[in-house]
């Protein structure tokens, strides 16, 4: 009897790494750390409006997100294999720039349960919502996932990579933008 109990506990501990990711309000960034400044944007294009309801129904507005720090928008779907590869490239940068650069996932042509599983499976630590009507996708000229968009603080649309972006290229952009 005891042996079974111990096994049970071990299994539970093993599941800790795969913890539930909900992309909800708890994943929104905290305040900007002291001493962080940003370089001026190189683009004059204004980022189109971004209105999103996170998976836990928290409403999020792009303008508030990129008011004081850069935002990386990841257009994805749970059924898209190249999106999994893209998330692998984004994850270390999301971690490195926690609270300095806001990453946000915008799902499309997808349903909440499948997206939630995908967040768990790919350990997505940033806020995520689903763009049900694909309005935001269309505004950002995203015709299929994956696509990655970089918005500079203040709302200038710096770069957009339909088809996804390599970790090196995005890291280079963030390196240029973030000064600390």
């Amino acid at each position, binding site marked *: 009897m005891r042996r079974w109990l111990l096994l049970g506990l071990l299994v539970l501990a093993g599941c800790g790494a795969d913890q539930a990711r909900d992309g909800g309000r708890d994943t929104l960034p905290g305040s900007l750390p002291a001493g962080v400044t940003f370089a001026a944007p190189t683009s004059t*294009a204004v980022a189109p409006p971004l209105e999103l309801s996170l998976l836990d129904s928290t409403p999020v507005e792009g303008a508030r997100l990129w008011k004081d720090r850069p935002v990386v928008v990841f257009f994805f779907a749970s059924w898209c294999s190249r999106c999994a590869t893209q998330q692998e490239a984004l994850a270390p940068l999301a971690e490195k720039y926690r609270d300095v650069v806001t990453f946000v996932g915008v799902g499309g042509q997808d349903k909440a349960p499948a997206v939630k599983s995908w967040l768990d499976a790919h350990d997505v630590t940033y806020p995520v919502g689903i763009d049900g009507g694909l309005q935001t996708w269309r505004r950002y000229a995203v015709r299929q996932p994956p696509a990655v968009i970089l918005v500079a603080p203040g709302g200038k*649309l710096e770069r957009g990579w*339909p088809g996804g972006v390599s970790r090196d290229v995005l890291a280079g952009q963030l390196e240029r933008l973030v000064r600390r």
Partner: protein
Amino acid sequence: MNKMRREKAVLRAGEFVSRQRTRAVNAEPLQPGVRAGVQVFLDGSAPVDKAPACDVNTTPTCDGGGPAGVWTNYSLETVQRVGYGSFEPDNGVLIAKNKAWAAGATRGTEGSQCGYNCFTWVEDAHPGDMNAVDYYKPDGTPIMRTVADYRQLNDALFHAGTNSGSSAEYVDAANNLHFYVIDRYTDARGILHYKVGVQNTTGAGPQTRGVALASQPGDALSSCAFKLTNTGAAAATDPALHPQDERASLDNDIYRLSASASGAGWSAELRNALATARFGESVDVPVYISHAAGAEPGNTVTLNATSVSDPSKTATATCASTSAGGTVGGSVPATLSLTLGAPATFGAFQPGVDKEYAASTVATVTSTAGDATLTASPVSAGGLTTASLAGHLTNGAFSLPEALRVEFSKSTWNGPESNDASTITFRQHIGAKDALRTGAYAKTLTFTLATTNP
């Protein structure tokens, strides 16, 4: 090729209201009484278009303007996505400025200022920036859609009603013109029609203007019905004022409506902020009411109607909610009900045989209480519970050595239940050494359904 009826010089005669049918279904010749649209010619000294000059090289919204534009008329058409309109991005009213053909030019002549058919400036109901990316360069640099992008006009059409996704009015202040998209309907064949209005903003015309509003009976809970009456009067106008006799289209007025709710937490909505009626005619104006949970009990809806021709002619009416925030329902009397099924019997007990006997019956429970518990207790002949007789079947003075066991499939409820069944299973173990007396062993049990939270 659409035959257009030309409305010239409506400027001098006040206001014009007309219906027009989807242009894509109109083939020559049109049946009498059916309009394909309206064309409004600007008149006066040249240049007839009084819009200020602007520079097409610096301002994308500049239509050439004034002398350089050479625009001479407006057209209003109904666009529906049928027939050749199937490729249009939207349904609605197309308001456009057009040019006459150059003197001596014939229709469709290559290089001519071909007038209505191919030199037309669409007035955009959404002239602002589209705020959308067009594409990204290979290095990721975004290129935004310009204001001159062909998709800019995807939402150019005007719509009728409130919350229509577009506007219902277009004003050309320089030319004293105000266009109204008053209402729309679909006929039995699914064809779209619009009711449009054209107004000269410098004068109310020779007609007298007036309006009255009356509240209609009703419960005023989800909507208020009002009747709007045009209390003005027609005036004689020159039948030759327009290329065709348009006197009938001038015998009306257009009204601007607004509605409000007085109660905190209440709101009043109009389906259409415009209405039109012929002189002496009445039309229905519904106002839709809603309230949030916790809204205050009383509410009054106020509707105001003002003539667009003569804003001094205005009317107000109110409609009070006769009951507000009232509860609907029925009360539920406290109920605890227990019904038992057929009496359980074990059949014959076999003496000298070690055996477990089981029998069951069903208890049906109906309870309106917050919780309920079902219990069984033995009852003595006198009706009092006696511990010493607890749970043993008896046959006269003899009782079975082992106790009767009673099991419920369900004995507690945490909320109200209606006709919930609980199977009561009785178990009696007879040991090989247990002595049994001839006759029937029986026990009367009391089943109690009790609650602490009625």
